[in-house]
């Protein structure tokens, strides 16, 4: 695996910690989160690798990944983590960091109106994926 040691962005780490309120540094890479994740087919890096890259300070690699958007917070990883790391909160923090920079994952107008969708999925989806 290609691992680069970069200057650790302490400010960004603090920001992720503050929003997530769950400490990724406690992860010992057992892989329990990845073994149970139902969204794995839509991910380019595995849930445990999200924690690994964060521990290594490779924040951009995680922030630019597809994986943070594939998580729908079903809490399987969070419930089963032997270290009590809540990856659903960490993913939320990573998405929030992108969204607060005024980013939309998709264009709302391209998905609305194609079919009748439950109110719940529209509100949830716009909240999670758009600025």
């Amino acid at each position, binding site marked *: 695996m290609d691992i680069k040691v970069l200057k650790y962005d302490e400010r960004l780490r603090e920001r992720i910690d*503050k929003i997530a*309120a769950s400490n990724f540094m406690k992860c010992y890479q057992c892989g329990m989160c990845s073994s149970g994740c139902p969204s794995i087919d*839509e991910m380019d890096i595995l849930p445990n690798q999200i924690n690994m890259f964060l521990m290594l300070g490779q924040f951009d690699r995680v922030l630019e990944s597809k994986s943070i958007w*594939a998580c729908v917070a079903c809490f399987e990883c969070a*419930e089963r983590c032997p270290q009590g790391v809540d990856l659903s909160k960490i993913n939320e*923090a990573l998405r929030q960091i992108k969204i607060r920079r005024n980013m939309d994952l998709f264009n709302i107008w391209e998905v609305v109106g194609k079919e009748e969708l439950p*109110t*719940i*999925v529209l509100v949830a989806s716009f909240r*999670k994926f758009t600025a």
Partner: protein
Amino acid sequence: MLKYNYFPGCTLKTTAKQLEISAINVGKILGFELTELPRWHCCGTVVTLASDDKIRSIGAVRTLIRAQETGDDKLITICSVCLNTLRRINARFRDDDEFRDAVLKFMDDEPPYEGNIKVLHYVDVLLELGLDKLRKAVKRKLEGLKVGAYYGCLLLRPAEFSIDPNTERPTVLERIVATTGAEVVDFPLKIECCGSFETVHKPDFVAQRTYEIVESARRAGAETIVTFCPLCHFNLDRRQKIIMQVNPGFKPMPILYFTELLELALSEEELSWEGHEIDVSDILRRYATIKKEA
């Protein structure tokens, strides 16, 4: 008649009307009434997981204040997402001083929420009544119907807010299904996520999840899946249409709301179930007469 304060949430008033209608009917038969709060607010649909985001919890707290104003300390929900959101925000309000102070300051035109509302699920009401009472009230025994009960994620996780203390092998829904005389089918993917709100921009991915869940239930012997969640129902029901387009050999499986199954067993009336993509009339016809449109 027992009366409970009831919070419907957005989707039981739109695409999941049949869930609300059947839940209310079942309540009437069993002797309890769901009294809708005279005014309520969106729960926020999904609980915010960002610790510094407080504004998206305001709607839920307002609803809890509306419940508090009635003088009763219980609030019933049916939707899994509303249950999870209201329970989590309620707990955060009680446990997180900084959060509570900020919310109360922001909402200082409202009577302050005291944190005493117990958010209960429809299942809790059934358990409180007692499953024996349910069993005795059955008018049409659903003998021969093979039912897989699907929990999805938000009825079970996080464990602190679960409707069953065993989050990996829950049995509460199965115990309720068994009272109807139907045959309970246990299947491994009953606690796995359906793909949730990814259904908006990735319907194909959710169709894949649906395929795995439906086939898991079928392999275990189920002919139908029942669910409490309006979102799971939408995904498991509607997304089968995509599976059928991709895989013409796929046999669709009817997906019922949990309370529709109870209504079928407890009611003596003619029934009609609206809002299903996959035809449910075979199951209905087996045990009841289908109500003709007026």
